[in-house]
């Protein structure tokens, strides 16, 4: 019993020393779950009408250094367009809207997240999905399924 207790304390001590305890909490998370965005209408002589969603948010925990958030996506066989912009930020500065392209390198999404202020920062994820008539439709070509990753890194 005592030996097990000592082992537990030792493990906690090692994690603490490595900064690991901080990382056991979710430092960044997407709230609101997965999204389905449907482009359903279009204009003759123009293009299908883009759709937007602000149904999801990003929660970011404060760190001891200035941080930023980057975004990337994996969408094999991508056919349509998807972009994201951080809005309603409680802290930090939004980068310009990012076009999400399969295999893209991580792009800056939020910059200058400070070391002070509230523990949790949030922003709304404003997604815009669009397509051209020439890009076709999901019935013939299938949906685009993006696995989107937000990463909190030191700036």
């Amino acid at each position, binding site marked *: 019993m005592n030996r097990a207790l000592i082992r537990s304390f030792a493990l906690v001590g090692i994690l603490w020393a490595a900064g690991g305890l901080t990382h056991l909490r979710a430092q960044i998370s997407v709230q609101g779950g997965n999204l389905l965005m449907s482009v359903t209408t279009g204009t*003759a002589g123009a293009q299908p009408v883009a759709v937007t969603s602000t149904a999801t948010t990003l929660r970011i925990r404060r760190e001891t250094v200035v941080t930023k958030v980057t975004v990337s996506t994996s969408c094999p066989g991508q056919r349509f367009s998807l972009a994201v912009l951080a809005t309603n930020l409680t802290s930090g500065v939004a980068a310009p809207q990012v076009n999400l392209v399969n295999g893209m390198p991580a792009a800056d999404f939020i910059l200058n997240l400070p070391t002070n202020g509230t523990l949790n920062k949030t922003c709304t994820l404003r997604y815009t999905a669009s397509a051209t008539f020439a890009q076709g439709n999901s019935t013939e070509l299938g*949906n685009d399924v*993006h696995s989107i990753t937000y990463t909190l890194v030191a700036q």
Partner: protein
Amino acid sequence: MAVLLASGTAHAQVYGTGTHTVTVQVSVITAVRVSGASVNLNISAANVVAGQNQMSVTDQSTSLLWGTNSSLRKVSVNTNLAAPKFTLRLLALNPTAGNAAPQVTLSTSANDLLLNIGRSSGSCTLQYTGIALASQGTGTDVHVITFTVAAQ
């Protein structure tokens, strides 16, 4: 030591990641419309050539606009007037996508106006030609014309 420092600079510390899935679905979308007002084709004395029975007049004041994200599509045209007194013909001029079919004599049956417009957004000028024979006398035909994007 120098190598280690360079390596540390290239990879900023990662504090965590958050992921979710966003699915983009694009429905089958077809849109078609006519720009411009109603067309009036008046065959009058100015269209008469002495010694010829046939008189005609043309109009290019309207355009057809479309958008379709389906493959292998065409535009067909028909009129609601089952028994016109005079002849009305239609030709698509200068389509920005696809190919114009030969000039169509309008009837209640669908006739091809444009071919190969699949997955495009475009427009063309509608050239109407009204034809009357002097022997047909006078009168008025009123057509309601329908354009349809259909599978080719």
